[in-house]
């Protein structure tokens, strides 16, 4: 039987190690003059993530009552006072039952009784909500909340969801107990083939990339009939505007004229105010002559035109947002707009938004 001598083995191992090192990339502190050690204060300033095991969770506490105040002040304009609003974002609260809290599975997700999924019908980890509010909320002033504010707002949301009572104080000490009451805490599965890392059996996630759906590459007479499951509804054909104008007017095909030849009109002349309104999302909620989410500009003009200092009032509205004048749907604040931009917009609206 052929056998390697010990020295041959030792040499091949050494050679292999050398190759591994060269393909493994670069060593620690390899690049002279590039990068420097982060200071503890720098890491503290940016390392704000909170994991499901609560690693990274700042100490602190907040109660439902304080959360209610903060929510009304900073969150309700988008989410509605009870986290129920579907006007700007999908609802935060609602859709779960006392029974779901017991089982940890939201029944409505499979029974079809749920009209719309809310945050609390989905989320299985309370850390996720804490982390997200702290890093990204409020919408127009992210990272302005203190940890105690986040505890309070989260306590209020948990109370809305009937997970905790009205006199509850949420803190880093008891958040682990609250986790055990989340209505959809058992509602996630990682048993799928779409995780690109190690599988669960090797300490990772999922089944190692095995697809759940199988097709075959049949080439001839693959079936006897073509079953059409769905066709484009008429409203959808025109809901995306004039398709003829979304294709070149030369080449192998043309865009189909969906709105009819009469609707074809020459491109409008440059309109800086309209561009400003479009660019900043105003037109997503306000039509020139119609209500969308908020009032049409024609309605705004009709209401304000005879009021003293209409321009000043509207400027303040645009800047700070508001709710109630036109119904319950809130308008978010627009702190990102410059004063002169708001002035341009308001004057344009008052002049008929042409």
């Amino acid at each position, binding site marked *: 039987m052929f056998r390697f001598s010990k020295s041959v083995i030792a040499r091949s191992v050494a050679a292999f190690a050398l190759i591994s090192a060269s393909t493994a990339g670069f060593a*620690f502190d390899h690049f002279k003059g590039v990068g420097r050690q982060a200071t503890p204060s720098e890491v503290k300033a940016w390392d704000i993530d909170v994991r499901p095991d609560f690693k990274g969770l700042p100490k602190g506490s907040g109660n439902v009552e304080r959360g209610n105040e903060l929510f009304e002040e900073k969150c309700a304009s988008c989410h509605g006072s009870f986290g129920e609003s579907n006007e700007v974002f999908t609802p935060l609260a609602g859709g779960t039952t006392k029974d779901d809290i017991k089982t940890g599975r939201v029944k409505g997700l499979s029974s079809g009784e749920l009209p719309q999924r809310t945050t609390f019908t989905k989320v299985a980890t309370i850390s996720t909500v804490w982390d997200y509010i702290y890093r990204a909320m409020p919408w127009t002033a992210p990272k302005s909340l203190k940890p105690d504010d986040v505890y309070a707002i989260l306590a209020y949301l948990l109370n809305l969801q009937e997970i905790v009572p009205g006199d509850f104080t949420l803190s880093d000490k008891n958040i682990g107990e609250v986790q055990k009451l989340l209505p959809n805490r058992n509602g*996630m599965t990682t048993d799928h083939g779409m995780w690109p890392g190690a599988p669960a059996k090797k300490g990772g996630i999922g089944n190692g990339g095995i697809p759940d759906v199988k097709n075959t*590459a049949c080439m001839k007479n693959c079936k006897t009939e073509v079953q059409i499951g769905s066709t484009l509804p008429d409203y959808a054909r025109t809901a995306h505007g004039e398709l003829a104008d979304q294709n070149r007017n030369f080449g192998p*095909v043309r865009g189909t004229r969906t709105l009819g030849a009469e609707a074809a009109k020459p491109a409008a002349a440059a309109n800086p105010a309209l561009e400003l309104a479009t660019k900043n999302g105003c037109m997503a909620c306000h039509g020139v002559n119609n209500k969308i*989410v908020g009032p049409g500009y024609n309605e705004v003009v009709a209401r304000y035109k005879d009021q003293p200092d209409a321009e000043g009032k509207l400027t303040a509205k645009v800047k700070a947002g508001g709710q109630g004048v036109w119904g319950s749907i809130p308008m978010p604040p627009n702190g*990102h707009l410059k004063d002169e931009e708001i002035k341009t917009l308001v004057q344009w609206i008052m002049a008929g938004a042409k």
Partner: protein
Amino acid sequence: MSDLAKQPGHLKKAPENFLSDGQIEAVAAGRRDFLRKSFLAAGAAMAAPLAARAAEQGDPNILNLPEWSTTLGKPVATNPYGMPSKFESQLLRRESPGLARVGGASVSFCPLQGLFGIITPSGLHFERHHQGWQDVDPTKHRLMVNGSDESLLKKPKVYTMDELMRLPPVSRIHFIECGANTGLEWGNVAVPTVQYTHGMLSCSEFTGVPLKTLLEDCGVDYKKARYVLAEGADGSSMTRTIPMEMVESGEVIVAYGQNGEMLRPENGYPLRLVVPGVQGVSWVKWLRRIEVGDKPYATKDEAVHYIDLLPNGLHRQYSSIQECKSVITTPSGGQTLLNKGFFNVSGVAWSGRGKIKQVDVSFDGGINWKTARIEGPVQNKALTRFNVDWVWDGKPAILQSRAIDETGYVQPTYGQLRKVRGTKSIYHNNAIQSWKVVESGEVTNVQVL
């Protein structure tokens, strides 16, 4: 009568060319009485002595020299940063009405219906922002690499753009697709064109530093650190968990370059993560921080959104790979074929699991298939262009494409996909797309089961 038909030198005199867009529409709607008049009018035009003489002589676009042949052109650097032709005003990024109510948390779709090859022009790259986009000052931008605790990384470090751009880079072509691409179509046909069905898809050459280079420079302990958290510098500071296996493979790039220039602000200028084959949400834009950890993070976009609802009420979490998929872009929904005859049918295929091996095209709704030509070289986890010849006989047809990747996975039908995942998944719809062609030449979106 269309402008084409008035041109005496126009050589194709098929009836379709006598029709204006509106008349084509009328034919499609079954109103044909005016057709006779069109033919008469066209006949009269041909009979007129002047027109007839012109027609014999040829196309006025040839016979009468155009302005651009007889005048001085514009000097160099008139546009110091060049723009597309003024005639290219139709192919734009567009929103889908009603999809989102706030522009800062919305999507704009890439106009796939008019693009060629595999590279998406940077200005037409699809957008998905979670809290608006920012134009970040590169001289003030920093990338921090740290560990979830000190045992995972010897030295947490900070890199400036100056420093990152000194490191040995790689340049690679990869597709990026939003996990929710085609998500509107899970239950039924909902949108008219390929821009809205498949336009959360783009492909670019990205240049940057492999993330493993940085992690190793910081002294990562691969044995303990099996996950990476990527975090953005914008208001949303978006975060996602990425497996260390992908980082170790060298595929994950901390990129600053896109198609030869810096990233565009809407795509994460000056720094974004490139995670080939994985859904776009993991390609964190305005990348400010990388944390290595020993557990996944369950961030908002992997615990509230980007989770796939199954019929049994469970959500799939950490679903990341974009499975093999393809779509015909020309002709496609919302387009009209001008007349019968030869067409090049063209589309793109891609797979998050590697290279595209084969694309088959059907013209009869999936009964028979023909293998398409693949334009090479085929790149790993990149868009792959396919073309196939087609002579349209003017009869109804249903066009489909079906991609196969190097793992042997065959793109599924709607029927196959729904059987396992139902219709409420939102994410990861990679079903075979069907376009129906009717006699008028109009192409519409249909679903074949």
